[in-house]
C-alpha cells in the first residue's frame, strides 16, 4: 500500500475545486464567476487589496456563507449542498483560522485548543494534554496554556487560534491573514511550520496573506483577486508573478516601493558636543 505521508502531489489529485463561483452579499457581488483548483499538499496563497473579498471567498469555501452561484468541491463533495452528516464529514477535513482569531474568550488557551480533541476523539486525558502542549509549542506559546485570550496580545491570540485550527491535523487548513500582527521572527517561524506540515504531512493550505516574504517562503501558487474586475487577475507561482508586468495591480503588489526614493536620513542639525 502507498503510505500517505510519502506523498508527492501528482497533478491530477485535486482536493478543492471551485467552479464558476459568484460570492457576495445580496445584491452586492464581491467576486464573479471565479474558478480554480487546489491540489493535495499544495500551498495556495490568495492575494489582493484590502476589501477585495478574500475573507468572503474563504468563508464561502468553508461553507459559512451560501454562494450566489457555483460549486465548491472539497475532496469531491459539494460543501454548498451537503447537509447533516455529510456536511460534518467535510468539516472534519478542514481547519480554519479566522481573521480575528475568534478564540473562545471564556476558555483558557489550553481549553480552546483541546476542545476539538475532547469532542471528537477518544484520546486519554494525558494524551490530549500532551498534544495540546505540542501544538502550543509549535506556535511558540509554550507555557501560556493557562492564560485567557483577553490576557494576550493580538499576535499571540492569532497564534493560539492557529494551534486550535490544526489540533486535529485536518487535511486542509484555511488561514486568514495568519501573520498579520506578528513580528518578522515569529512570522518566519510560522512559515517554517506551514512548510513542514505541508511537506511532511501533505497538508493542504489556503492562505490569505499580505506579507510578501511569507508568500515567497511558502506559496506553491498564488492567485490574485481584483476588487474592480471582481475576478482572478493573475495566477502562478510567486516568481512568475513578480516577472509579470501585464497587469498593473500585480506589478504594484510585487514592486511596492520601487520608484519611491527612500526616506532621507536626517542629519542632526546641532551635533551634541562630545
Amino acid at each position: 500500500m502507498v503510505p500517505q505521508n510519502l506523498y508527492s502531489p501528482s497533478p491530477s489529485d485535486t482536493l478543492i475545486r471551485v467552479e464558476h463561483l459568484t460570492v457576495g452579499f445580496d445584491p452586492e457581488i464581491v467576486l464573479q464567476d471565479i474558478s480554480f483548483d487546489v491540489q493535495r499538499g499544495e500551498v495556495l496563497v490568495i492575494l489582493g487589496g484590502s476589501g477585495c473579498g478574500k475573507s468572503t471567498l474563504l468563508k464561502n469555501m468553508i461553507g459559512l456563507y451560501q454562494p450566489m452561484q457555483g460549486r465548491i468541491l472539497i475532496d469531491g463533495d459539494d460543501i454548498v449542498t451537503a447537509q447533516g452528516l455529510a456536511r460534518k464529514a467535510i468539516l472534519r477535513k478542514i481547519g480554519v483560522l479566522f481573521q480575528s482569531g475568534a478564540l473562545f474568550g471564556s476558555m483558557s488557551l489550553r481549553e480552546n485548543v483541546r476542545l476539538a480533541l475532547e469532542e471528537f476523539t477518544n484520546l486519554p486525558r494525558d494524551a490530549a494534554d500532551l498534544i495540546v502542549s505540542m501544538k502550543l509549542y509549535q506556535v511558540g506559546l509554550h507555557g501560556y496554556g493557562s492564560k485567557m485570550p483577553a490576557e494576550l496580545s493580538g499576535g499571540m491570540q492569532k497564534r493560539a487560534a492557529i494551534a486550535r485550527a490544526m489540533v486535529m491535523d485536518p487535511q486542509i487548513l484555511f488561514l486568514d491573514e495568519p501573520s498579520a500582527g506578528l513580528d518578522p521572527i515569529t512570522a518566519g517561524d510560522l512559515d517554517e511550520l506551514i512548510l513542514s506540515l505541508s511537506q511532511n504531512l501533505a497538508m493542504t493550505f489556503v492562505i490569505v496573506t499580505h506579507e510578501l516574504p511569507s508568500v515567497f517562503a511558502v506559496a506553491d501558487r498564488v492567485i490574485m483577486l481584483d476588487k474592480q474586475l471582481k475576478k482572478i487577475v493573475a495566477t502562478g507561482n510567486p516568481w512568475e508573478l513578480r516577472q509579470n508586468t501585464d497587469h498593473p495591480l500585480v506589478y504594484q503588489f510585487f514592486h511596492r516601493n520601487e520608484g519611491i526614493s527612500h526616506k532621507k536620513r536626517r542629519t542632526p542639525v546641532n551635533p551634541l558636543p562630545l
Partner: protein
Amino acid sequence: MADKDKQPATVGSKTESDGCLILTYSGRLDCLTTGAVWRKTSYLLHRQPKRLVVDAAEVSYCDGSGIALFFSLRLRGLRNQFPVEIRNLRPELVSLLERFQADTFDLRPPAPPPQTNIPTEVGHWAWHVWQDVFEHIAFIGELASWMLKTLIRPVGLRWNDFFLMVERTGANAIGIIALLGFLFGLILAFSGAISMQKFGVEVYVADLTAIALIRVLGPFLTAIIMAGRTGSSYAAELGTMKINNEIDALATMGLDPVRFLVLPRVLATTLVTPLLAVLANLSGLVGAAVVFLWMGFPLVTFTTHVQRVITVQILASGLVKAVVFGLLVGAVGCLRGLQTELGPSAVGISTTRAVVSGIVLIVVTEGIFSVIYYCLGI
C-alpha cells in the same frame, strides 16, 4: 484518504530476555485512532522496562497525534531513566518528531489557584463594596454637573442621540407597558373584589384600585420594566463599547464619555419613565373597569368613584417618583456598563448587575418616598 484506508492502529509488544521491551506499531495513527493505542501503550508500560524499542515500520499514516504518542514515550523514558529508541520511522515523520526536544520540553503543571481564607475574602469584599460606593458617588457627581451644564447650555447635549434613546426606551415600550398595566389593574381589581364582596362593599374596588395604581403600583411597575428592558440594554451597549476600546477611543479624542454616552441615555429615561407611568396608570384603570363592568355595575359609577379619590396631589406624588426612578435606572445602567471589565462574560455580568442594582434602588427609593409623603401628609 478514503475510509477504506482506515485500518485500525495496533500495538504489539515483546519482552526480550535482557528486559528490553519492543513495541511494534502498525496502521493509521491519526487523532481518531490513536486513543485506543495510547491506552494500550500506557498499560504495556505499566511495569517499567530496562530499555524500550519502538518499531514504527508498519505505520501507514501518522499525524500530530501519532507524533505525540512517540514523543510521550521519549518523555517517559527521560523521566524514568530508561533509554528509548525509535526505529524505522519514516524520515519525514522523524523530522516532525525532531521539532520537539524532550529534555527542554517542560510540562509545567498549571499554577495552583491562589489560596484564600475568610479574613482575606471579607477584606476583598469590603474593599469592593467601598469602591462601588465611591464610584457611585463620583459618577453621580459627574452626571449632576453635566446635567447642570446642559441646563445652562442645551446645545451641549447630543439631541439626535437623545431622541433616538427616547424612541427606543419610550415609544418601543408602549406595548409592553400597556399590556402589563392592563393585566395588573385587572388582577388587582379582581382579587380586591373577591374579598370585598364578603362585606358587600365591592363598589369600593374602584377607589382601592385607583389609589393603589396611581400612587404606588403604576410608577413602580413602570420602573421595574424600565430596569429590565432599558437599564440592561444600556449596560450591555456601554459594556460592549468598553470591551472594544470604543470608550478609550472617545476619551483619547477628548470627548467625555459621560456627556457623549451617558447623558442622552439618562435624560431619555428620566423623561420617558413618568410618561410611561401615566400610560401604565391608564391601562391599569381600564383593566379595573373591565372587572367592575363584569360585576354588573355601570361604568359611570367607576368613573365617579375614581374622580372622587384621585387628587392632583396623588397623581403628582406618583409621577415625581417615576421621574426619580427613571433617573436611577438610566444612571445605574450606564454606570454598570462603564464598570465592565475584560473578558467574555463581563458584559453579561454588567447587565445582571444593572438590573439587580436598578431594582434594589427602586425599592429603596419607594420606601424613602413613602416616609417623605407620610411626613408631608400626602
